[in-house]
């Protein structure tokens, strides 16, 4: 394999080479994830030791805390959990997995990277403007996000945030249009839809969701910018008074923003997690050396999750004062989406009990992904019940839910992908021993950080509180829980140093690999430039090998079908 060194500069800065773009996206996400983690550690420090001063900055004021929350979420949701599974990984393997020699729209694809970079720069600039970064949270509900008088960070900081979001939407849509066109038009001979790897099915669905959801977010962000600067009032109601001063009378409603935002926001979590689900199925097949037992069921589940995912946004709004009958309806669609999700989980569990499990690092992280996906997923049907959500909404119970099911499951699947596809990035393998240490510490620390949040939430502790003070006596009982969460968070962050060391050192010192180190079947490992496909993506099992090598237990998609 001739892979240029990891840190090698692309031959041209504005490269259209997917491998180069995949690396650039990974570096971009690495910057975002490091910053996002540091911000979350500052939040934890402040919640546990409120009087602690940060070097250079000084004491963390309540508005600083909310700015940390907002920027942490924005960095993680957009620049890590969307960029890596939806841009870095597809650039790395998608065209190869379908046997395409190149993307359908290489320039559009490359432009998407530079727009994403511009978006990150604009977002980070919000830290350095007067009054600092926005404090309205990543959901940016108006009027808090619509009126500069609503608080510090709601002036220029919010403008930059909205601009960054709008740019990100453009990039996401451009990138996804390329992926859709590539999957639909550039499959190699024989690569029909029943032979697509489940990762490609996931990208087909998540890219469709991206085009729909990010278009809605782009519209919402533009409308909010117009409300702020062009005198419109899509989201501004009449009779608003801020600090005793009557504001411009509008004719709109903040509810419109809630609907638009969550019409984006909920599909977004599937955009972030669907590629991970496809990857989990592929890796389970590979590391158990058995096919995916219910390929059609998995495809249907993926399609159903995508389709139903467009109709569940109202479950974020059960307590918004929306018509209670709408709450009932959205509760129903949300429960409905649990069924295909459960089908996938149960199939993975079944897969674990077939064949022999090879416990390489990518497999361990896949098991971690499944563990978190179950842990966070199981509280989903609780939160889907409007009556129960009315108590749990916006408490730490919800913070626990989405950090387990989206953040931890998401990140563990990203790690699985990076450990697994690292040879495609560098021609070398990452260190297995370090990978396993990284996995076990991360798994334990992540549960330590996020599981106890359920208890804080059940006690009624709301999100976004800079400090636990006031007349709520029982908040004091939660201080030990909070302290444990903080220590676990620091351990979790420290474990990632092992990963960073492994990631960069293995690029030059890792064991160099055979062409197909995991003995995988899918085409990203193919040595042939223009393959033709005659069999499905997961032909594993005893005696599955091609005619020339009958002792092997897998039949790659680039090998001709074995006549039975």
């Amino acid at each position, binding site marked *: 394999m001739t892979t240029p060194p990891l840190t090698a500069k692309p031959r041209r800065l504005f490269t259209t080479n997917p491998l180069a773009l995949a690396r650039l996206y990974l570096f971009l996400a690495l910057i975002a994830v490091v910053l996002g983690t540091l911000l979350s550690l500052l939040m934890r420090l402040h919640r546990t030791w409120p009087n602690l001063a940060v070097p250079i900055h000084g004491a963390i004021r309540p508005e600083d805390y909310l700015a940390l929350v907002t920027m942490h979420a924005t960095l993680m949701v957009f620049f890590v959990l969307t960029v890596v599974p939806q841009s870095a990984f597809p650039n790395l393997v998608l065209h190869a997995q379908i046997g395409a020699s190149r993307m359908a729209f290489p320039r559009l694809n490359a432009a998407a990277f530079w727009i994403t970079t511009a978006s990150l720069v604009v977002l980070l600039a919000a830290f350095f403007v007067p009054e600092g970064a926005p404090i309205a949270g990543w959901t940016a509900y108006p009027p808090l996000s619509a009126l500069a008088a609503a608080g510090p960070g709601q002036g220029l900081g919010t403008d930059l945030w909205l601009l960054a979001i709008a740019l990100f939407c453009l990039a996401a849509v451009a990138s996804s249009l390329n992926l859709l066109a590539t999957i639909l038009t550039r499959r190699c001979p024989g690569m029909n839809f029943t032979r697509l790897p489940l990762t490609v099915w996931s990208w087909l669905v998540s890219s469709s969701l991206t085009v729909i959801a990010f278009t809605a977010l782009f519209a919402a962000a533009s409308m909010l910018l117009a409300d702020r600067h062009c005198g419109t009032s899509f989201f501004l109601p009449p009779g608003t008074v801020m600090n005793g001063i009557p504001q411009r009378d509008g004719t709109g409603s903040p509810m419109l923003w809630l609907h638009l935002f969550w019409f984006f926001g909920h599909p977004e979590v599937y955009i972030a997690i669907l590629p991970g689900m496809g990857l989990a199925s592929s890796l389970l097949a590979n590391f158990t050396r058995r096919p995916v*037992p219910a390929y059609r069921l998995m495809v249907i589940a993926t399609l159903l999750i995508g389709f139903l995912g467009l109709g569940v946004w109202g479950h974020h709004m059960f307590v918004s*004062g929306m018509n209670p009958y709408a709450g009932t309806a959205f509760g129903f669609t949300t429960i409905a989406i649990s069924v295909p999700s459960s*089908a996938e989980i*149960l199939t993975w569990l079944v897969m674990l009990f077939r064949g022999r499990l090879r416990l390489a690092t990518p497999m361990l992280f896949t098991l971690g992904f499944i563990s978190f996906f179950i842990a966070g997923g*199981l509280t989903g049907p609780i939160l889907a019940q409007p009556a129960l959500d*009315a108590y749990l909404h916006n408490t730490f119970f919800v913070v626990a839910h989405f950090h387990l099911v989206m953040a931890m499951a998401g990140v563990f699947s990203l790690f699985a992908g990076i450990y697994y596809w690292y040879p495609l990035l560098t021609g070398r393998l990452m260190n297995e021993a370090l990978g396993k240490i990284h996995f076990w510490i991360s798994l334990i620390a992540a549960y330590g950080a996020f599981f106890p949040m359920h208890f804080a939430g059940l006690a009624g502790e709301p999100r976004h509180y800079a400090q636990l003070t006031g007349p709520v006596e029982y908040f004091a009982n939660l201080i030990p829980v909070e302290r444990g969460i903080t220590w676990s968070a620091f351990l979790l962050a420290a474990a990632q140093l092992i990963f960073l060391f492994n990631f960069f050192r293995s690029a030059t010192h890792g064991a160099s690999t055979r062409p197909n180190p995991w003995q995988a079947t899918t085409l990203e490992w193919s040595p042939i430039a223009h393959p033709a496909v005659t069999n499905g993506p997961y032909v594993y099992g*005893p005696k599955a090998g091609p005619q020339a090598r009958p002792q092997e237990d897998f039949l790659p998609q680039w090998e001709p079908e074995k006549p039975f």
Partner: protein
Amino acid sequence: MNFLPPNGALNGTALDHLLRLNLAIVFWLFVAAQILLVLALLRRASARSSQASATAAKPSRTLLVIDYTALLAITALYIWMLVSSHRLWAASREQNPTAQPVEVEVTGVQFQWYFRYPGADGVYGATRPNLVSAPTGNPLGLDPSDPASHDDIVSAILILPANRPVDLRLRAQDVIHGFFVPGMRLKQDAIPGMTGMLQFTPTTPGDYPVLCSQVCGLGHYRMQARLRVVSPAQFETWLASRETAILKTNAAAALGGSQ
């Protein structure tokens, strides 16, 4: 282990029961799934020694039957969850206002809750944004030219009688606030430009914190008030004393105005 704060509302008992049941089911499902994951790890350790355990490449029928059966079972569980909790939702939200409720209007303002009782006439007086002035004692902008506003009581503490249905009107002056009373298992957003409706019945006398559950600005964490549930007699006494005080103030103001 009981992390839920003490409940003081009529619907809260059933809700707590259902929530605990849900949590128990989900917790044991979580434990079962994690045990399966650990078993898979252990199985691999033992399978390494016995090469012969390799099963056929075709998926075993038994495993698939287990897969689909488990899926059916869990779907049935989800449907039960939906139906059982819908009764509670319907009881608390999908009902018409009860007869003879205690009426209170809740207004969220950065970073304070105000509670307004309509007074003896049972009608909330008009409010105007340009009259809002907390420093001069008119935080809600009550319009003195509307006679219905003359007997309105504005309070920083929410006092309610036990065992009478309460009809809340939710409003917000500036940004979205989240009206959250953990002890009453009660939460709904107050959205500027809209009037929300919320009904409940407090049963147990005592003090309950009122929080803000929707991030509303830098003082979000300290936007807290108190709900005090008292006996109906105490409530009537408190209401009457506030009423007298307000009418006295209004009369003094009117007298001052005429001189």
